[in-house]
């Protein structure tokens, strides 16, 4: 092969890989990004069955109930609306009432959100950024002291 052919073939292969990656990326972004919702969004929006989402908000005051076994029920609220969540497992260390959480999972037929992941961060003043931003928009959020 001449230098030019070589260069063209390398460029061609590169393009093919990029096209492959772009294809995969678009497909994945269409399929598999888990979208972030606050309770109010969910009331306004119809979700498809079995759609995996992230639900964020504050853990509603007085809503945490530990059931039989390792199951915990609580409600995620944005101070106006609330969604009931059930989670089996060990909650993060910083899970508390009135704290911001992000939960990940799917809706059950009866409208209860079944979370398989409850996210927290390793900082006591932590509020998930998505949650904080949205609460600020709604004017519910008060800026806290500290970091």
């Amino acid at each position: 092969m001449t230098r030019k052919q070589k260069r063209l073939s390398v460029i061609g292969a590169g393009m093919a890989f990029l096209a492959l990656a772009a294809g995969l990326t678009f497909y994945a972004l269409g399929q598999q990004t888990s979208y972030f919702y606050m309770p109010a969004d969910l009331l306004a929006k119809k979700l498809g069955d079995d759609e995996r989402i992230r639900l964020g908000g504050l853990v509603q005051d007085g809503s945490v109930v530990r059931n039989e076994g390792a199951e915990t029920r609580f409600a995620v609220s944005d101070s106006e609306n609330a969604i009931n969540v059930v989670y089996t497992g060990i909650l993060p260390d910083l899970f508390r009432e009135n704290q911001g959480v992000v939960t990940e999972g799917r809706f059950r037929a009866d409208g209860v959100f079944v979370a398989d992941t409850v996210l927290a961060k390793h900082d006591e003043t932590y509020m998930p950024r998505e949650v904080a931003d949205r609460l600020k928009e709604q004017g519910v959020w008060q800026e806290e002291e500290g970091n």
Partner: protein
Amino acid sequence: MSVELGHFALVLAFALALVQAVVPLVGAKLNHDKLMAVGGPVALTSCALVAISFAVLVSAYVQSDFSVANVWENSHSAKPLIYKISGTWGNHEGSMLLWVLILVLFGSLVALFGRNLPASLRANVLSVQGLVAAAFLLFILATSNPFARLVPAPIEGQDLNPILQDVGLAIHPPLLYLGYVGFSISFSFAVAALIDGRIDAAWARWVRPWTLVAWIFLTGGIAMGSYWAYYELGWGGFWFWDPVENASFLPWLSGTALLHSAIVMEKRSALKIWTVLLSILTFSLSLLGTFLVRSGVLTSVHAFATDPARGVFILMLLILFIGGALALFALRAGTLAPGGLFQPISREGALVVNNLLLTTAAATVLIGTLYPLALEAVTGEKVSVGPPFFNLTFLPLIFPLMMLVPFGPLLAWKRGDIWAVSQHLFAAFTIALGCGAAVLLFMDRATLAAALGIALGFWLIFGAVTDIALKAGLPKAGFGTALQRLWKLPRSIKGTALAHAGLGVMALGLVSVTTLEIERIVVLKPGETVEVGDYRLRLDGIQPFTGPNFTEDQARFRLFASDGTARGTVVSAKRFYAVRGVPTTEAGIRTLGLSQLYVSIGEVTEDGGLVVRAWWKPWVTLIWLGALVMMIGGTLSLLDRRLRVGAPMPRRKARLVVE
């Protein structure tokens, strides 16, 4: 007083870095020997000054000098000494100081060991290093001064975030930064070559070992971070595709590509322009990582120091360095002379495919990391991109790459014979498939995916064995001779084989733990047991315990094998750090062979039961052992005598760098 000394040393270092950035560059332009020679001594002095500054900060931490705001915010007099020291870089200001210290350290290594580099190349490299150092020193002085005083001085500090009080996190940032910042050398060499408009043999002989050094440290840093997250966060995961993790993984991917393309450049002087571009991109990804982690633009479970004002500053630095370097590349790349020719099927060809796959994989990770940011900036819509995205995009690119790895080292340079190589690899392929089949037959829970994944891991390992065996002369030479020859094989060949085998070992761990892991969530009262895999775990009781700066409730478990024999105890705890009022979960981990039993505990229920989450994690240790094998392979390759012929490093000093 001494704290002001540290601050003053930092200001001086900044001034010297500016001198280092300008004078050698002008000297190289004018071909003025004396001006070019300024770079070396200035780089060394500036390094000494930053070292003094860093030592001052460390000593402020050790002495619990709470008149320094940074110490007050992140330390406490009751903290164990090791965490007083590591607390120095367990926060934004201190870790940026460590970042710059490592940067100027690398710069001074070029000054020390680069005596037989062409003078103008050396001058330009030092100049670029000086510019990067000056920019980051300015960043520290302007936005993140670690030496700010508090008046009046508080009596007690606020303590280090408990989750960072861990040996793993004491050594993780230094390792990671040695990797991140180590790539600045290849960046500086690339920019210097573009300024010069020419690349010679000395260029490649320098860039490759230094890239290898950075790569070894980055591999170690990522593996360390992964193991820390695994045992400290208590959720039993080792990789989350979290933006902060991706930030360190991106330069690793492109750095790995760079390592391979630099081989082609050194051996065959082909792929020059591509290697220069990769050098620029790799350090750019390091800088991007620093930006993402330090700026607060990301939501992450790991980001612990965030401030938008700093973000803007780092963003400017990013634009300056990445944009500047890429613009220079666009202008000057054409002037670099093209290199050797090769057929598509050849060692070079294999390395090109390696590079294409690695860089495209890096691109998908980059998109997955930045897409949520971009979408939010444009439409305001918030999305989170998580593991499903990366499983769909990254894995399909990485699996074919891993399939191809054993072929690369066996193909000849310039024109390879794919058919002959396939025949050589046939045995490895068969054994690997056999291992997969055995998993499928003898493991109860094994799926086809698990079997294929495990076969892939063994394929990489036996592929590496085949490579070594062939190069030692098997099967022709006979076993005895081959064993003798094996000993004398060049270290770089053994290093390559080890690194590739390490990748296979890691794949085995990843596949087996993700596909064969067993998880149990139960509520136990003292005396009750739970079965996890082949083991039975009995809760003996919960006892309080007091540590130096925390109290904890320890749940003690006794472990039994399936035949009833006792296998020792596992202790899992809920820890409470009173100063910060923070609870943490301490996982109880027991290593059994290559596998681990992992227990974390939740709260005590109303009727006195304890929420227990237990995992059986088969072969999980292989993930990190694999990384270790890769690092050993890299180190072996670095110590290769042939690499040292051109690399202007005396033997003793070369070893010093590796340690």
